[in-house]
């Protein structure tokens, strides 16, 4: 195996799983990413809006800066992979992703669902599925089943009624 190759599941999966104890031991925090959207809103919104929308009215520097630093690392890690580790070894986004209205609107509308859904469920694939189940949280298991169920249902509808194909 060369450094430029993608990793097989039985190496990549266990490495990802080890981030759960690594976060607890090294940072005293739980692995999680989707709260960063909330922190970003709290940074961007003016105080008078936050006074009304109390969900964003908290000290993001105290609550969220650790996670924003982690997100910064994610950005840089993607760049490291792309520049020096041979990339992911597979096409990452559809050809029309950024060049057609259909592609752009799908990403944008889907993104709204990602932001809305992860905040309502209070976690995403990392926070609930990888971290939550590893910490034996039943709610995280239920959340993860719903994540997959939503994706499988969307895939089914796309293929059955809108001519979607599997790449």
């Amino acid at each position: 195996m060369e450094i430029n190759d993608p990793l097989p599941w039985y190496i990549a999966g266990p490495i990802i799983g080890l981030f759960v104890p690594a976060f607890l031991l090294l940072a005293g925090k739980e692995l999680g990413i989707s709260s960063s959207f909330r922190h970003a809103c709290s940074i961007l919104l003016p105080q008078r809006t936050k006074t009304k929308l109390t969900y964003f009215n908290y000290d993001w520097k105290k609550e969220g800066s650790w996670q924003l630093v982690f997100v910064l690392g994610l950005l840089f890690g993607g760049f490291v992979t792309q520049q020096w580790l041979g990339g992911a070894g597979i096409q990452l986004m559809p050809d029309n992703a950024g060049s057609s209205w259909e592609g752009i609107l799908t990403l944008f509308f889907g993104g709204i669902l990602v932001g809305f859904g992860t905040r309502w469920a209070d976690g995403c694939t990392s926070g609930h599925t990888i971290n939550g189940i590893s910490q034996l949280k039943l709610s995280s298991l239920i959340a993860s089943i719903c994540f997959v169920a939503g994706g499988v249902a969307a895939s089914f509808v796309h293929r059955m009624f809108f001519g979607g194909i599997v790449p």
Partner: protein
Amino acid sequence: MKWWKYPILLGLGVAFAIGLSKAQLISFVRIRRMFAFAEPHLYLVIASAVAVGLVSTLILKAITKKDIGGQDYQVKDRPFRPGIIFGGLIFGVGWYLTTACPGPIYALLGNLQWPALFILAGALIGAFLFGLLKPKLKD
């Protein structure tokens, strides 16, 4: 939080994004195949991640309940509530449409996949809409 945890978290982010990228968890090809049950790859990645995460976390907690700075872990309680089901299903549909969950959105941007900016913009608006509607939604 102690200052030295920031470079650690930065390093964890770098390593996590490399892992997500090299597992091809950030590829629309893999995500579409997963949700269509066309191949087991990502299910195996996620299942083995959870299996190793579960066992290694149990071992860690048996050894210590404190981080290397001597402080207790900050762990959320995560009780069950209906929002987990509604939000979970909505996120699942969004995951299929964008083929990116939150971690991969950032990892894709790092991989210089600029269309992922549309996903990020949508996700921030989605989080804002949740904050706006939260008083009216079931918890």
